[in-house]
């Protein structure tokens, strides 16, 4: 069973892969929206959700797509953690 930190690390690593600017940051922003910060573009939201679903083998429901659930890396990993626990 993955813990919250492992989940967070996998998400961060994935975001870093396609984004040298994020990768080079001294402190990766985990509590803010990467879209608001300008690191992720409008395509990025679909991509992020698709990654979470495929990578953690979970299903994110339509009504779960909210800023409260996915608005930052912290929130994303919490959602994933919750879903994995529900399994």
């Amino acid at each position: 069973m993955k813990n919250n930190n492992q989940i967070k690390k996998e998400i961060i690593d994935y975001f870093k892969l396609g984004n040298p600017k994020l990768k080079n940051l001294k402190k990766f922003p985990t509590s803010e929206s990467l879209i608001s910060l300008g690191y992720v573009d409008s395509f990025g939201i679909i991509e992020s959700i698709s990654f979470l679903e495929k990578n953690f083998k979970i299903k994110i429901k339509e009504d779960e797509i909210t800023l409260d659930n996915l608005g930052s890396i912290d929130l994303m990993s919490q959602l994933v953690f919750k879903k994995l626990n529900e399994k």
Partner: protein
Amino acid sequence: MCGVAGFILKKKKSNKNNIKKINQILDLISYRGPDKKQFISNESYSFGTNRLAIESIKNGDQPIKFENLIVGFNGEIFNYKKLIKINNLNSSHIDSEVKLIAYLYKKYNEKFLDLIKGQFAIYIFDTNKNELFLARDKYGIRPIYYMNETDFVFASEIKCILKYAKDKINFSKSSLAQTCFFWTNIGDTTSFDKIKILPPGQLLKFDGKDLKVKRYFQNQIIQQKDENDITNDDFYELLNKAVTNQIHGEVGHACYLSGGIDSAILAFLLKKKISNLDTFSVSFDNSDYDESKYQKKLSTFLKTNHKQIKISSKDIANNFSKVVEHAETYLFRTAPVPMYLLSKEVKKSNHKVVFSGEGADEVLLGYDIFFENRIRKFWSKFPNSKIRYKLLQKLYNYLPQFKNSRYFEMIKDFYKKNLGSTDDIFYSHLVRWSQYEQIREYFNLNEEKYNAENLVEQFLNSLPKNFKDQDYDRKTQIIEENTLLSNYLLSSQGDRVSSANSIETRYPYLDENFSNYIFKIKSKLKAPGIKSKHLLRKSFKNFLPDEIIYRPKFAYQAPEAKSFLSENHTSRIAHEYFENIKNLNNQNSDSIYDLFKKIKHPASSSRIGFRENMAFIIGLSDHCLRNFKKKYSNNNEK
């Protein structure tokens, strides 16, 4: 369409040598004009043309000697017969476009450019003054490149100059930065440092020492026509006239049919003149990009002989490097590849000319960016509004992340960037251009001259002086005309990929009389609110199915990075690129390796993010350009 090339030697060489050279460089672009190769050469200069015979097939060989002038050109002068009449010329004496150009130049000098209407790249050498004159049409439909180093050399394509030159030519880092920023080169930049392009609407004079380039065409600024002044009938007639004028030449004419309204209207107007009209479309096996439902509907409705080619991701990967060899520049997306394959199909049907809808989105306000600009301006007046930004959702409804309101709530901040900077003269493009900061990280573009503000300043300097005085819609149009339209849609996705198959493209929406008239109509009439191309739709609503007339915008796109690379598959070209990354000194290899990993990641989505995709395609085209340069360079340098 033809291919032209020539050179003026600063130190004389034997004519034998020059003949060999001119033959050699013309042969490289023989596909531009397979009907006849001719040149005029001596110890000081050579000028040549590969001709694609379309008009005055019997009398139009070129270059010609006309008293003290040597004249050749690539393109069409659509009002050529009219000019012969107006000038009371003897049509048995002036019996081709090239002779008319010579005559008019003799009579009016460079002012003749105000008289001719068409798509062209012209060269005229005055043997008395030893002066070369080059000119290019107003939108840059036909290309011309030049280099002034050991010798002065010009050509329709860069490969001729590379092959000719003994000079050391390097890749232009500015071009790479510009492509990452504007999506295309700007001004006279090409992907090679010493080679320039003559920008649209400009002319060049070279007298053996001094080189002068100047703009002969200024953009229209007047916007005065009100609703009462333009009727649906007027509009119909204007466009009909533009199409009729361009049915020019002694060969058949075909038409592209994308499934959208622009090409549908062209096919409709052409069909009235040409009963057995052939139409051609691209379809995709990936339904995200496919428009074949509308293409079939239209071809049945218009009763055209329709041919369709189906493009797979494999086709994209297999033909990308060939397309870069023709585009001769960095590419930021793969969309030129299907157009290359489509013109091949047109050629197979024995055509020489095909009509295409480019220009309609610029002239008639079709692009999302016009409306994104309007919505952001509206939103900026009340940034906390819970409603105003939702117009963006309506605008981009064809994109999945917008269609779904939940997704949209999360991405709206993306469009909030610089929302308040409404005084910025480039306000319309601030969101698009802000992506540069991310994209440049994949490349070694750290020097100050590649900072955003310097690139923007460089761009401003390349624009007409009256740019700042235009209203905001016209400003947006001018930015589009000077980036995406002339340096990508009409070139990488237009002239270069169709010429590769000896096909000439025609663009009635860029007809000078038509576009100038349309510029004078107030924007709110052309497209009120966020109703794109409203005037066009209104004027043709009785002639085409409602489904086409009121079809929401669907941007032409092709499968991108994942065509080259996915979890279980690496195309040959992507493999070569991967192996070569360490040698590509403009690229940040660690970031590109990461990008490869990301695209191949089993959990990555079928479409990767916009910026990552753009970085990958630009990087891949950089790799292809290296091969291109090796293939065509004269001095075998790497």
